[in-house]
């Protein structure tokens, strides 16, 4: 029993510590990449070519004073960043990084991920409510409405992938793509899933909740020091997990591009990381390239375009699979 517990804790730390490091360097990549797109250098002072910048940022946030606003609900105010951060870590347990390289290979893995990403709206709405200040309140309302709108179409897209794979287990979903990645037969679903992932993580061009020109910074205006840092880490870890979900559902997880000699010698986790990095770069690219949406455009895209289209494509896929007798066993 104790041995088992120790094994679990070690395997969880093997996930959590690299995750936190990659989140830190995600922020550096973002700043460097956006700097290059805007023809600047990005951070290049701290360490060699700015490589120690994320550590310096983290240390600065750690040393700052924690402000607990006098008219806020202190318990909820402290709880909100904890909820966000904990939920962003929880999803990584079921992600398969390679063949068998997963902490708990539960049967309902995709449902678990869906549930965890749905729960993350609670952290944001708790922050906005407990701050008792106008900007966080409006930001949290917008954020909650936006996240639930896009969750509906994400649900339909997941259903479509599950019916092609025949299982909720993430490893089985990946192995079902060994002949052809789902991005090819389900290309429109892939595009919708990625755009919904942008909206779900409140990223550009859908970052209405923290539109800095009108709402200063959205739901985390009142947060400082480590409370803000936990929100920040949680958001970026959520972005990574949405990239990971896209990789698993549509890009064949750890599977190599073609199952031929030089390509299948590269280990599975490396393939997984390469594919995940593509989506991370796409997240940053969207931020650097696209202007912000208006809120009514955002809602009409979610409800009037993605919801009917994903529902229709789901029925189309089911009909194709049944009529050609292609259903997985």
């Amino acid at each position: 029993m104790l041995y088992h517990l120790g094994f679990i804790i070690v395997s969880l730390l093997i996930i959590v510590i690299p995750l936190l490091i990659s989140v830190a360097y995600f922020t550096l990549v973002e700043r460097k990449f956006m700097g290059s797109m805007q023809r600047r250098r990005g951070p290049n002072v701290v360490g060699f070519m700015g490589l120690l910048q994320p550590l310096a940022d983290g240390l600065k946030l750690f040393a700052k004073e924690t402000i607990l606003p006098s008219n806020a609900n202190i318990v909820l105010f402290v709880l909100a960043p904890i909820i966000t951060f904990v939920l962003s870590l929880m999803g990584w347990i079921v992600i398969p990084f390679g063949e068998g390289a997963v902490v708990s290979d539960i049967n309902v893995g995709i449902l678990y991920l869906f549930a965890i990403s749905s729960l993350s709206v609670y952290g944001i709405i708790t922050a906005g409510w407990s701050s008792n200040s106008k900007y966080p309140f409006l930001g949290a309302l917008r954020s909650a409405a936006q996240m639930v709108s896009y969750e509906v179409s994400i649900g339909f897209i997941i259903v479509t992938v599950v019916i092609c794979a025949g299982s909720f287990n993430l490893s089985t979903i990946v192995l079902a793509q060994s002949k052809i990645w789902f991005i090819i037969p389900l290309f429109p679903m892939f595009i919708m899933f990625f755009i919904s992932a942008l909206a779900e993580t409140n990223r550009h061009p859908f970052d209405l909740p923290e539109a800095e020109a009108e709402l200063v910074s959205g739901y985390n205006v009142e947060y400082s020091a480590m409370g803000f840092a936990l929100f920040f880490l949680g958001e970026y870890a959520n972005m990574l997990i949405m990239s990971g979900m896209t990789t698993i559902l549509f890009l064949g997880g750890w599977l190599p591009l073609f199952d031929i000699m030089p390509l299948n010698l590269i280990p599975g986790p490396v393939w997984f990381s390469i594919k995940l990095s593509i989506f991370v770069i796409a997240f940053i690219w969207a931020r650097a390239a696209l202007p912000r949406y208006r809120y009514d455009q955002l809602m009409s895209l979610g409800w009037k375009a993605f919801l009917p289209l994903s529902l229709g494509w789901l029925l189309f896929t089911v009909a194709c699979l049944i009529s050609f007798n292609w259903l997985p066993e």
Partner: protein
Amino acid sequence: MQTLFYEEYSPILVMSILAVLLSVIILGASFLLSIQKPDTEKLSAYECGFDPYEDARNAFDVRFYIVAILFIIFDLEAMFLFPWVVSITHISSMGLWVMVDFLIELSIGFVYAWKIGALEWE
């Protein structure tokens, strides 16, 4: 059942405890180790240059409620689809047509919500 928990779900329990501990530790350590000098100006709610004179939690747009209600309907619909898709090989074509009927009825509801303008944001 015990082995299922032991093999698959115990990491989730341990992870939730570990993650809560980790976040409480870094929040608490930052709070205790950095210098805290609160004063009324720092602790008042952020507002553009003047003191907040009313509670921030006043009325907000009713459309947020409408979106929440619509979300409940359509997310439940997605939840009904989940058990259906994994059992579709075991149920006959009857199972397919029952679900198609269900989706048609929901689409009628969706069209109604669209027509009365519940999805409009001007």
